């Protein structure tokens, strides 16, 4: 169990981590999600006592990290894949870690076998691919057979086979009753592994819930509706006080009104409908929606690309953001909206 209490980290004027309080529990994979620059790695470094918090504290099974005897036996961490001396062989890298925590030498061979690096044990790690480096880092985390494991962006740079392997590893570690804490900036990745979610944006805690609850609370549900009598449909909706947004394919999207209500409304006006379907936004969208206001580094030029990934087309995205209160705007729509506003100012 890892407990964070009021954890903050300030770099100059910038508050990188802002008063984080949450608990990572054993027996499941807890996903630590946030956009790039949200403070995930800083938080993880403070958990390992590598960085000093400006205020607040972290407790590992009730103790401060520095109070742990042989910490690798309590908590294993993969921070970055290349946190090792490239001139040292994989075996020696693990051996010096094992010795520093009084872990039997035989364990080195075991973990190398576990991560599939036995064949290159005597090779210097600078020749390793990113995936192999990642595996060696994971071997280091598993070395002390710890009850708590922490992985910072473990799937970065891995091939599909490696990603699959890591997912299964994390799940099996959690199934053994261990505490598994994994950071990622990809919601889709978390959806496949994590049962519990901690979301941060600009260093602040945005959500600390189970995965299922997160999806329920944060995903936008809407109804897709289309009719051959497009103009009449719009009129009918408008007279009923319902705001509809036109998607690029001529469909309308309606927020916050049940499909049944819309169907009854159409029947009342003897309107033919070709489609009436409730839609659920994907997890990625839910995440983007939650962190839209807190994204640190925007790629302005790729705003269209970002919007294109979402199921709603760009035009609708902008329209939607305008129609809805800003706080509920989509990540993509919000981004698009900003871009539009800037363009308008430039007189475009």
């Amino acid at each position, binding site marked *: 169990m890892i407990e964070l209490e009021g954890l903050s980290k300030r770099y100059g004027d910038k508050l990188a981590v802002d008063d984080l309080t949450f608990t990572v529990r054993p027996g499941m994979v807890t996903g630590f999600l946030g956009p790039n620059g949200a403070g995930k790695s800083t938080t993880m470094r403070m958990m390992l006592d590598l960085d000093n918090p400006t205020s607040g504290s972290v407790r590992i099974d009730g103790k401060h990290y520095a109070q742990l005897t042989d910490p690798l036996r309590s908590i294993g961490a993969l921070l970055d894949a290349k*946190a090792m001396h490239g001139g040292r062989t994989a075996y020696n890298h693990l051996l010096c870690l094992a010795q520093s925590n009084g872990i039997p030498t035989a364990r080195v061979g075991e973990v190398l076998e576990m991560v599939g690096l036995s064949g290159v044990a005597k090779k210097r790690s600078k020749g390793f691919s990113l995936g192999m480096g990642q595996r060696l880092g994971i071997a280091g985390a598993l070395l002390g057979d710890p009850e708590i494991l922490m992985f910072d962006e473990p799937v970065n740079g891995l091939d599909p086979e490696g990603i699959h392997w890591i997912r299964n590893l994390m799940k099996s570690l959690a199934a053994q009753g261990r505490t598994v804490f994994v950071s990622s900036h990809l919601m889709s990745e978390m959806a496949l592994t994590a049962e519990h979610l901690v979301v941060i944006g600009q260093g602040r805690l945005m959500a600390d819930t189970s995965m299922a609850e997160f999806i329920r609370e944060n995903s936008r549900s809407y109804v897709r509706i289309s009719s051959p009598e497009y103009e009449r449909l719009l009129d009918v909706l408008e007279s009923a006080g319902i705001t509809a947004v036109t998607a690029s394919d001529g469909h309308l999207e309606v927020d916050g009104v049940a499909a049944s209500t819309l169907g009854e409304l159409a029947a009342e006006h003897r309107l033919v409908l070709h489609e009436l379907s409730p839609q659920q936004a994907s997890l990625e969208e839910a995440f983007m929606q939650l962190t839209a206001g807190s994204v640190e580094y925007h790629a302005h030029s790729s705003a269209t690309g970002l919007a294109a990934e979402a199921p709603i087309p760009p035009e609708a995205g902008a329209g939607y953001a305008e129609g809805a209160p800003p706080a509920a705007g989509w990540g993509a729509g919000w981004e698009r909206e900003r871009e539009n506003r800037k363009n308008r100012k430039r007189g475009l």
Partner: protein
Amino acid sequence: MAVVQQVLRSEWTKIKSVRSTAWTLGLAAVVTIALGALISAVSANSFDTMSQEDQLTFDPTLISFAGTGLGQLAMIVFGVLVVSNEYSTGMIRTSLAAVPQRGTFLFGKVAVATVLALVVAMVTSFLTFFIGQAMLGDHKATLGDPGVLRAVIGGGLYMTLITMFSMGITAVLRSPVLSLGILMPFFFLITNILGTVSATKKVGQYFPDQAGGKIMQTVPTSDDAPYGPWGGFGIMALWVVAALVFGYVTLRRRDA
């Protein structure tokens, strides 16, 4: 104390499992011995053409250690790399996660590197002396001569202290480029110039290598410093302690 033993074992594995250790220590030994032998041979040949004063103050022991000035640079590289490797590779985060007691970590590392440096430097020092004296022929000194054994052991200790000083400075600066960029010219040029030019000599003679190098002298020179061989060595030791304390405080305070 279990932790200390574990850290020492771990650091020993670390130091012997990288190539730079053998390269730098080997280079230090070869350069010190070879250059000392060469300069000894040259001095033996030109002894008869020296001025009378030079002949009277001729210090065969010190002559054989003439390679120290260059050889110490390799020891500095060794000291710098032992510490800076951790930072330049990112290994420091892995290391400190394994040993969160930063004092134990740093001093464990320094202790292991120091013992290794001491062994290499002592062997180098005796070899340098014997080979140098062999080259000096008729003008040679023996270990039984006054002050000679002290000077030869001192030569080994001097190299060891230089290594420790470099480790302390690197623990403060962290970057290998920065540390080498400061230490190399400092010991190769700056202290030599400041220690020789009369205007700056008063200050220059208190620099670590200028003070510590005194221990390799067996014949007092006219422009003598206000400290003896061991006094000078003590001054150098103070520099080393200061550098290591500074390094420790830095490691304690800063984020890894």
